[in-house]
């Protein structure tokens, strides 16, 4: 299977006030296509910093980061922005939808920054993705009119629009109740089953149990890296039109 990302001897140092913080102390990790990885660890373990580096929002001080075969560790700001828009999809704990935009328009945003011409074709894809996550009937609504779970679904659809190599999720269920968390994780699992590579940061074991590989960090290094067998997905209840993923993805 192809490698999606490869990190070797990654160090990250930054200065905080007058002292220097060594957040990542030589991390090595490889993720292949189709994997579903959880990144866990206590506060200060470096998992958020690692996610930022993976997301090309931060640059390593030492070491290398290959994403989709390209070495992105020394790239400039504009190049990294381009990498993000082409290769990555983000899902945040706080959904981070833009309040002035409707559901469909929110999904479209990564396409704008890719420089793709927005036409009926791209619009149709966005609509398809909205339907995929079960929000086809709410296309013109604004985030304010949606529940937390619904907003996160929009965020998930948004993360798919640019056909990313890798989806990065930062505590995707952190702000949701148990039932909704369950729905969101079901959706992510289904996405993963149809081939999407996902790396997720979480501090909850229950959520990590949905993934197929659990990486634990402590004090800036990887402590353990184990496979995990998630429970079978509960197919009862309204199914999502996952067949749309073929066309949309």
């Amino acid at each position: 299977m192809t490698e999606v990302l490869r990190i070797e001897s990654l160090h990250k140092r930054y200065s905080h006030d007058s002292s220097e913080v060594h957040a990542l102390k030589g991390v090595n990790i490889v993720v292949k296509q189709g994997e579903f990885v959880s990144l866990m660890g206590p506060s200060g373990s470096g998992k958020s910093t690692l996610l930022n580096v993976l997301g090309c929002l931060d640059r390593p001080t030492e070491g290398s980061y290959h994403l989709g075969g390209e070495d992105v560790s020394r790239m400039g700001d504009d190049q990294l922005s381009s990498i993000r828009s082409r290769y990555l999809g983000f899902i945040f704990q706080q959904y981070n939808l833009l309040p002035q935009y409707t559901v469909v328009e929110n999904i479209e945003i990564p396409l704008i920054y890719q420089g793709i011409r927005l036409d009926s074709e791209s619009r149709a894809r966005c609509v398809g993705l909205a339907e995929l996550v079960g929000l086809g009937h709410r296309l013109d609504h604004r985030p304010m009119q949606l529940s937390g779970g619904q907003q996160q679904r929009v965020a998930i659809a948004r993360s798919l629009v640019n056909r990313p190599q890798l989806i990065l999720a930062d505590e995707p269920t952190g702000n949701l109740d148990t039932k909704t968390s369950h729905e969101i994780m079901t959706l992510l699992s289904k996405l993963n089953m149809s081939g999407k590579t996902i790396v997720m940061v979480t501090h909850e074991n229950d959520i990590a149990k949905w993934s197929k590989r659990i990486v634990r960090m402590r004090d800036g290094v990887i402590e353990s890296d184990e496979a995990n067998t998630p429970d079978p997905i509960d197919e009862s209840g309204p199914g999502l039109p996952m067949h749309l993923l073929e066309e949309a993805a």
Partner: protein
Amino acid sequence: MALVSGLACLAVFLATTDKGRRGLELALRSLWLHKLRSFLSMLGIIIGTSAVIILMAFGEGSERDVLEDIKRLGTTNIIIRSVKPPDDSNTNRRQMVATYGLTYSDLEVLATIPSITRLVPMRVFPQETRRSARSHNSRVVATVPQYAEVNDLTLVQGRFLVPDDDERMNNVCVLGQETAKSLFTFEEPLGSSVKLGEFVYVVVGILAERMPTGGTGGSQAAEDFNQDIYIPMQTARGRFGDRIQIRSAGSRSAEKVDMHQITVTVEDIDKVRPTGEIIRSILGDTDRHPRLDWALTVPLDRLELVERTKANIRQSLGIYASISLLVGGIGIMNVMLATVTERTREVGIRRALGAKRSDITFQFLIETMVQTGIGGLLGVAFGVAYVFTHAALKTLPMAAMLFQDGSPSPILHVPSITWSLSTAVGVGVIFGIYPALRAAYMDPIEALRHV
């Protein structure tokens, strides 16, 4: 202008490209979302822009007013006035008679100057005009027939004075509109007589109503022609003599003035100044005028002065208006900085989704420019509307306090529209750059952590 074509390119860009359209759409949406705040931040630009339009219009109007007055007067005229010397109150205390000014002798000498084509003396004093039971406080103007030409008077009835009147010292008069209306409400004034002092005068003409002018008309003092009654100069000399009683509230004095003003018309514009010098040397002779009781004005000088100051005034107005636009720009920058801070999260999200720094800069810059652009348009609309409704507004009771009669009407100065609009948008660019760059250079991670 380069500025206008630059803006035109921008407009095209905004309309056609996706980024442009999206940016514009987003800008409008963000503005609409916070209507009150957007309006308040635009207020500075609106005021600044309308100030440019209105001030320039007043400048244009007053310039035209002045130029019209001067031109109407004729740039080949020279005006000589009698001036009451200040030391008079001391010397003639006992007599209380003020003797000063231009004399009949001066007039005779001036008449000999070859370059002069017209010589119009006038003698002015207040007097009560009476007709049966009615009376009117008029201003008596004793003058010669050419007075009508020089001051461009229009008759509605009858005739003005003629040379014959002076020769024969006819007791005839010409009435101004107000004088006529006061004395003859239902009767026909023409041919009737009125009494001035001890003598009776036959009305031979009535003047059309005239707008009062500022002091740049046919004479130096402001003239309200409507209250006048005109009689031949020689008649006045004969009937009223040299001394005129002046009764004003609380005091009585007399003055012995042959004539208050002489308007001289020179045959050629090139001869105006030299003639002026000649007149000055004649009157300056201390045997003729021991005290400085006369003054000479050459409107031609005035005209040139006006044209010279035209540029200065426009420049000054431009500076004042620019200052207000500057203040407006600072206001906008302030609001945009607050807006950027408020939308820190949004900036982080966009960056995470692939926005480059230039995308963010562009986005916020467009928002600022849309704000100032709309503010500019509103300001222009308000300014132009004001210019056209000023005449009507002036009649409102409040306005009477601000505007005196005789203040110029504003005339729209068309270039000021494009100038102020492009400046408004330019202000948007200049004052929007800093907040936009601040947004663009935020660290995305920090921004995402922001509340």
